[in-house]
Each structure stands twice: as structure tokens, then as C-alpha cells.
């Protein structure tokens, strides 16, 4: 009886906080403990019975092969994020400032790829890039080429499809900042004698900085570990961070080396993220003060 009232009184408290705990437990159990476990795996010795801590999995990564893979993924992620942002900005700008008719339709067709299965989007490109695909048959029929060109299984295919899949991630945040933007500011700037270029640099760009940065990072972070696109469209000829990690964990079952490589990749990603963050801050300050 006593226990029951005690139990009930918890329910009747102003804020029975333990109702909130399942989500926190889930989050810690399946995200933070596993991440900690990866860290532990990366320093755990695998020398049979003597399970001591070691740094050998990190020294094994000093081989230049790993540096080449990290550099390749670093390039892919940074180039992809940069190109996606550069392509996304005009699209978002156009939709926010120029379109009046069919605006909802245009936005619908921009959001749609967000919701289409990633795998379907990747699969669709095979019909464009294949030896008998759209590009080759177009070019052959137009007489521009006489032999089908090799497009699949090249870095070009990887970069193209990466941009295709990630561009909507960059458009949406930029569009939503530009949309909230008070258009009278542009008129005010023009009335006060600024050229369109000055208005762009000193009003539009600084005010959309947050959206641009969000879009950039939304592309940068996932594309660094991207596994599917390089595997399917690169023909597995060149290894990227994602493909090597999945090789160690799923095929080679070498959790220790896989974990240390994951940690090193994470550090590379964090460093490039911080550098971009500082670079953006510097660039937006510069643009605000531009003449």
C-alpha cells in the first residue's frame, strides 16, 4: 500500500521527469555508448589473450595509402559542398526573388528529390551514363562522337551524382533564409545609391550567411563518409573513406583497424569543418565591409 502511494506520488508530481527518460536512455545507449565503444576498439590490443591498450592501430595508419584515401574523400566532400552551394544559391535566389507565377509548383519540384529514395536517384543515373545510355546515344546521334565514351566507373560519374544527390540539401536552407528576407532592404540599398553588386555583397550575402553556411555543412558532413555513390558509380576502383570503413567492419571484420581509421577520419572532418567555419566568418565579415 505504502509502495503504491509512493509510486503514485511520482506520477502526480508537477513534472514527473522519468517519463522523459526512455528517449534519453535510447539516445545514450544507441548513440553515445556505441561511439565510445568505437573509441575503445581503436586502442584495444588484439594480440590474443593479452588484451591491453595500444596505439598500434593508429601507427598502422601511417601508411601513405590511408593518407591518399583520406585526401580523396576530403577532396570529394569539399569540392562537392562548394559546388552544391554555388549551384544552390542562384536557384534559391531565383525562387525567392524572381518567381511569382507557379512558385508553389517550382518549390514542390525542388523539394521532391529530397524525398525520393537516394538509391532510386543513383539508379536513375545508370540510364544516363551507361554505354548505351542517354548521353552516349545523344552524342552518337548528333555525330559528335563515333565511339561511346566511358562515363560509368569514373571519378567524373562520382562527382556528378554526388552533386545531383546533395544539391537539394544546400538549396533548402538558403531558400528559407532568403524567403524570410525583407525585400524592402534591397530597395533601400538601391535608393541610397548602391550598385546592384554592392547591394548583393553588403546586404544580400551577409543576411543569407546563416543559410549558406547551413547548406554547406549539410552537404559537407555526409559526403565525407559517402559510401554508396563511390561504390556503385566508381566501380570500386578507388577507395573512399566510407568504402574502406565498411570494408574493415563488414568484410575483413577487423574492428580495431576500422575503428582507428574511423576516428582519424572523424578528426579530419572536424578539422575541415572548423576551418570552413572560420573561413566563412572571415569572408562574410569581409563582404559586409566591401566597398
Amino acid at each position, binding site marked *: 500500500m505504502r509502495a503504491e502511494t509512493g509510486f503514485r506520488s511520482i506520477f502526480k508530481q508537477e*513534472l*514527473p*521527469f*522519468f*517519463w*522523459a527518460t*526512455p*528517449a*534519453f536512455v*535510447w*539516445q*545514450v545507449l*544507441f*548513440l553515445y*555508448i*556505441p*561511439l565510445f*565503444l*568505437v573509441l575503445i*576498439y581503436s586502442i584495444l590490443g588484439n594480440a590474443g589473450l593479452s588484451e591491453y591498450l595500444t596505439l598500434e592501430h593508429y601507427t598502422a595508419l601511417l601508411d601513405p595509402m590511408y593518407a591518399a584515401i583520406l585526401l580523396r574523400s576530403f577532396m570529394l566532400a569539399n569540392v562537392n559542398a562548394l559546388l552544391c552551394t554555388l549551384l544552390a544559391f542562384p536557384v534559391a535566389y*531565383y525562387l525567392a526573388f*524572381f518567381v511569382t507565377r507557379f512558385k508553389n509548383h*517550382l518549390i514542390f519540384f*525542388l*523539394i*521532391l528529390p529530397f*524525398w*525520393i*529514395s*537516394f*538509391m*532510386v536517384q543513383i*539508379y*536513375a543515373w*545508370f*540510364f*544516363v551514363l*551507361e*554505354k548505351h*545510355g*542517354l548521353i552516349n546515344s545523344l552524342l552518337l546521334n548528333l555525330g559528335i562522337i563515333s565511339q561511346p565514351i566511358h562515363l560509368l566507373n569514373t571519378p567524373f560519374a562520382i562527382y556528378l551524382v554526388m552533386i545531383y544527390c546533395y*544539391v537539394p540539401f544546400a538549396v533548402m*536552407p538558403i*531558400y*528559407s533564409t532568403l524567403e524570410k528576407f525583407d525585400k524592402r532592404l534591397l530597395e533601400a540599398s538601391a535608393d541610397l545609391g548602391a550598385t546592384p553588386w554592392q547591394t548583393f555583397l553588403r546586404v544580400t550575402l551577409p543576411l543569407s550567411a546563416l543559410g549558406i553556411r*547551413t547548406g554547406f555543412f*549539410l552537404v559537407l*558532413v*555526409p559526403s565525407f*563518409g559517402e*559510401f*554508396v555513390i563511390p561504390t*556503385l558509380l566508381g566501380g570500386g576502383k578507388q577507395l573512399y573513406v566510407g568504402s574502406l*570503413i*565498411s570494408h574493415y*567492419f*563488414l568484410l575483413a571484420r577487423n574492428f580495431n583497424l*576500422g575503428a582507428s581509421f*574511423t576516428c582519424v577520419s*572523424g578528426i579530419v572532418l572536424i578539422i575541415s569543418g572548423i576551418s570552413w567555419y572560420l573561413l566563412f566568418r572571415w569572408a562574410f565579415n569581409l563582404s559586409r565591409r566591401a566597398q
Partner: protein
Amino acid sequence: MTGRSSMSYYCFTFFIALMYLFLYVPIIVLVLFSFNDSTFPYIWKGFTLRWYSELWHSHEVWNAISNSLIVAFSSVVLSITMGILAVLYGSRNRLAQLLVLFYGTLAIPEIVVAVGLLSFFSFFSIPFGLTTLIAAHTLLGLGYVVPLIYGRYRELDYALTEASMDLGATRAQTFYRIIIPLLAPALLASALLVFVISLDDFIISFFCSGASTQTLPMYIFSMIRSGTTPVVNALSTGLLVVSSFLVLLFSSLNIKKVDMLP
């Protein structure tokens, strides 16, 4: 409008048209080839609907669809239930600072989360299958649900809850009759989002499903690797129709996906 600015306007419009072409040409070709009467998927022979009937009768595809749906529905229910409880009971006391834990899932590359889950499940020798998939997808869902509902909940007027209690409603009545209806659009939007993300997820499923369980994206992945048939096109076309329908539903809820990005 001066000549020069209208010229640049047309160039701009042309560029935007090219971007939309870039986004949609592959998808249109994909849909067209689902009606192609040829077993070799890349050369056009003629019109047929047989790939759709083959899709309808394919045991493997239906197996993947049912796995995907089971995982998606379970993770939606689990993440929404836990998410709303975490927001309601966690946001007005010391736990509020801990809500930041939920933003981690979005900030960490998916492959790192996947590797962590794989290590975790193998370390504790948990058998891989639907259970591990549901656990993983619920985690993924919480990363979207909690920020989205929390964002909407903070905008609610706490006075409404107080008024309801002052007028004699119990906590449960307030919850069902005041808070839930006010949060309904956010709840529905996050449910849709988690559903689609779960259906679409590849990397985490690839790491956490074990050898015998296959979800829809994993099926398409293995088909692309091992040589595909137009059945995959028919399947993709079906998925496209479902996605378009869900976007319409989602946009009618008037919440943008980007709103909940931290």
C-alpha cells in the same frame, strides 16, 4: 527594365531551367525504361507493362517492402512516443540542457553512427535482424523528432496549459485536449519525416541488418551490383509515386524540413 538587366534575367531563367532539367532528366528516363520491353535494361525496344506484373509477383521485393514497412512503422511509433514524452517532461526542468544530446545524430556522419551500432551489437552479441534495425532507425528518428517537436513546443503559450489546469482539468486531460491538438501538425510532420527517412536509409540498415534481413534500398543496391532488370525501374517508379504523394501531404502541413535543422 533596361536591355542589359532583362538579358541577364533571361540568362538566369535559362540557368534555373537547366538545373531543373539536371534534377529531372534521369528520373524521367528511369520511369520511361520501366515500360521498356527488353530484358537488357538500357536499350529501348517497345512498350510493355510486364515489369509491373513481375514486380507484383516478386517474392523478394515484397519481402523487402514488408521489412522496410515494419521497421519504418515501428521506428515512427517508438520515436514519436519517446520524443514527445522527452519534450513534454524534459524541457521544463534540468533535463532541458540535455536535450542537446538529440542534435548529435544529425551532426555525426551516418557511417560513424552505423559503425558504432555495429560494434555495439556485436560487442554484446545481439543477433542482427529486424530488432536491431528498429533500434537503429528509432535512434535516427529521435534525432529529427525531438528537435522538431521541441522547436514547436517552445512556441506554445504555457499559459494555455496553466489555464486548462486552473479550470480543473487533470494533467492527462490537459495533455490530450490541449497539448496534443496544438502539437498535432508538428507531430504529423515528424512522423512523416521519420517514416520517409527510415524507408530511405541505406547505410545504417546495411550495417545493422545482418545477413538475412533485407530492406528496400538494400534490395535495389544489391540489384544494381549484381546486374539489374527493369523490375527495379518499376519498383522505383512506384516509390516515386509514393514520395510525391508524401511531399504533397507534408507541404500541406506547412512545416518546412529545414525548420528543424539546428
